[in-house]
């Protein structure tokens, strides 16, 4: 199917059609901010959102999910949630993060709990319409995205380009088969919007070339910035919890009221929390705040590139906004390394 061009009314009709048939999650208003939530009608969908409080990662790796169930006999069984859903209006930087998670959860050993959800997800990316206060995706090469999604939406004036890229996407966009095709000029306009977004999504200016970041970090283990910044860190883990590329988890057993059966659940964890690296006997291998703080930036800028070949920060800016102490801006940290290194 060629890319289609539809007006807002047609978009709403299409979205309402999707909602009638499927579970659809998308950005909606919550107070003066935005969150991904289940949509009951197209009117709730806010494609003009700037950024959501939590990334859409929560539909692929939920805050808490059952991995296994167990019964009276003590035997464990896998719990796999493979119910299909549509994830509507994902911003390119969040899509890049999902692509990274796809690699992480299939690297060496496939995590079937993640991949079952992922295979059943239809993802509709929407090129950013409103620039958020702290986004720096333009510096991270993530203001646009070219893979992983099923449909790309781009707002051009009062219309949307709907560009299905996969079979799943074509199926979801099937209702638009009779809509007019996008013209070459429309495709050209989309390109301009994407180029402009790369410039606009730079609310913070990263001075380190991305390819040099792992090398810069490699020589910065003893840099004063870790102590300086982490001095006011509350070890609250907010930076971890709003991050689209943080995937560390904890596993706990939940016992049912009958005290016989239950579930083994995993939940998001945060490496900034004090006891993240504590083992039996109260040995904490990252007892100092500065060690935990440093670990987060090394993970994003050094360890993730080593593991998957990409910087593990997509520039969404959520950590910058979420941090009470105002110390979590990755751009400030990486720039500081550059300054002192010179």
């Amino acid at each position, binding site marked *: 199917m060629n890319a289609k061009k539809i007006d807002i009314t047609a978009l709403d009709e299409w979205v309402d059609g999707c909602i009638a048939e499927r579970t659809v999650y998308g950005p909606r208003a919550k107070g003066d901010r935005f969150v991904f939530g289940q949509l009951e009608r197209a009117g709730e969908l806010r494609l003009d959102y700037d950024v959501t409080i939590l990334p859409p990662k929560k539909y692929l790796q939920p805050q808490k999910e059952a*991995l*296994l169930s*167990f019964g009276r006999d*003590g*035997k*464990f*069984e*896998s719990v*796999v949630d493979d119910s299909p859903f549509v994830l509507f209006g994902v911003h390119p930087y969040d899509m890049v993060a999902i692509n990274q998670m*796809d690699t*992480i*959860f*299939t*690297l*060496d*050993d*496939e*995590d*079937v*709990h993640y*991949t079952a959800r*992922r*295979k059943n997800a239809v993802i509709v990316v929407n090129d950013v319409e409103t620039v958020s206060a702290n986004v720096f995706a333009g510096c991270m090469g993530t203001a646009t995205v070219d893979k992983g999604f099923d449909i790309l939406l781009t707002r051009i004036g009062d219309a949307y380009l709907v560009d299905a890229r996969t079979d799943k996407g074509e199926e979801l966009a099937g209702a638009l088969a009779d809509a007019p095709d996008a013209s070459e000029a429309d495709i050209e306009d989309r390109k301009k919007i994407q180029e402009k977004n790369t410039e606009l999504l730079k609310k913070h200016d990263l001075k380190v070339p991305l390819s040099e970041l792992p090398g810069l970090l490699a020589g910065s*283990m003893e840099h004063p910035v870790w102590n300086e910044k982490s001095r006011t860190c509350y070890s609250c883990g907010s930076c971890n919890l709003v991050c689209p590329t943080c*995937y*560390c*988890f*904890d*596993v*706990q*057993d939940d*016992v049912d009221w009958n*005290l016989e059966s*239950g579930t*083994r659940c*995993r939940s998001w*964890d945060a*490496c900034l929390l004090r006891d*993240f*690296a*504590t*083992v*039996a*006997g109260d*040995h904490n*291998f*990252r007892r100092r705040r500065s*060690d935990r703080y440093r*670990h987060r930036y*090394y*993970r994003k800028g*050094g*360890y993730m590139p*080593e*593991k998957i070949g990409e910087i593990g920060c997509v520039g969404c800016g959520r950590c910058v906004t979420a941090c009470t102490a105002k110390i979590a801006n990755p751009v400030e940290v990486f720039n500081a390394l550059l300054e002192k290194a010179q």
Partner: protein
Amino acid sequence: MSAQKATDIYLPEQATVLRAEPMTKMERFFELKMNSGKPLGHMPGQFVEVSIPGVGEAPISVSSSPTRGDSFDLVVRNVGNVSGAMHKLETVERVGIRGPFGTSFPVDGEMKGKDVVFICGGLGLVPVRSAIQYVLDNREDYGRVVILVGTKTASDRLFSGEIEQWRASQNITVLETVDHRDEHWSGIEGVITTLIPLVKLNPSSTVAIVCGPPIMYKFVIVELMRRKLPTGSIYVSLERRMKCGVGKCGHCQINNVYVCKCGPVFRFCDVDNLEEAI
């Protein structure tokens, strides 16, 4: 993503307790067998994740050698939820097992043909016992064998009967020390490093296996280096919070290294530049 149906990496298999006995006030011994009837398939130094339904899962070192039959031994110190629940386990009861995970001591690699010195502090003897048994069961493959064991007090000693058997074997030097001597101990007193000057080490043909509490490594390794042992010939087993065992959950990370996959056994020269390792 692969199209074929993958198995669940978090799903434990069942194992049955063949033997459960107290060792000290804090440690309990278990002999387990997989219900599948198959051997665990581990190598010395690897660990398993032990599951108690409703309580949780914990990483536990395998304490026996794969040369000792289809069952396997674990020793558990009562320090947490899972280990606490395991201390109530009796014969015939079942637990869940995932694994074996991680790297092993180089019993079929660098250790072969070399003198081997095992240096164990406290619970460090538990994983190292697996390698000691393996070496004893293939005794002709190795040179001199030296076993150094340190505990806090005499009542904390683990496998004391087995240590006596080792001591009685030919071609094996066994030295023990306790941090604090009492009426139950007339042997050597002092921390584990006290024993190192007492043994002959040929630096060019010796492999050292070191395992113990975090504080022990610094001192033992300095002592070994003083004896001119190359850092490439020193192997350490590092303890971390290996929650998932498959390199995903992030808890066991030392800098860029996932201990559950790249460890727990490391060649010391590969970790001595890692800021958070020792």
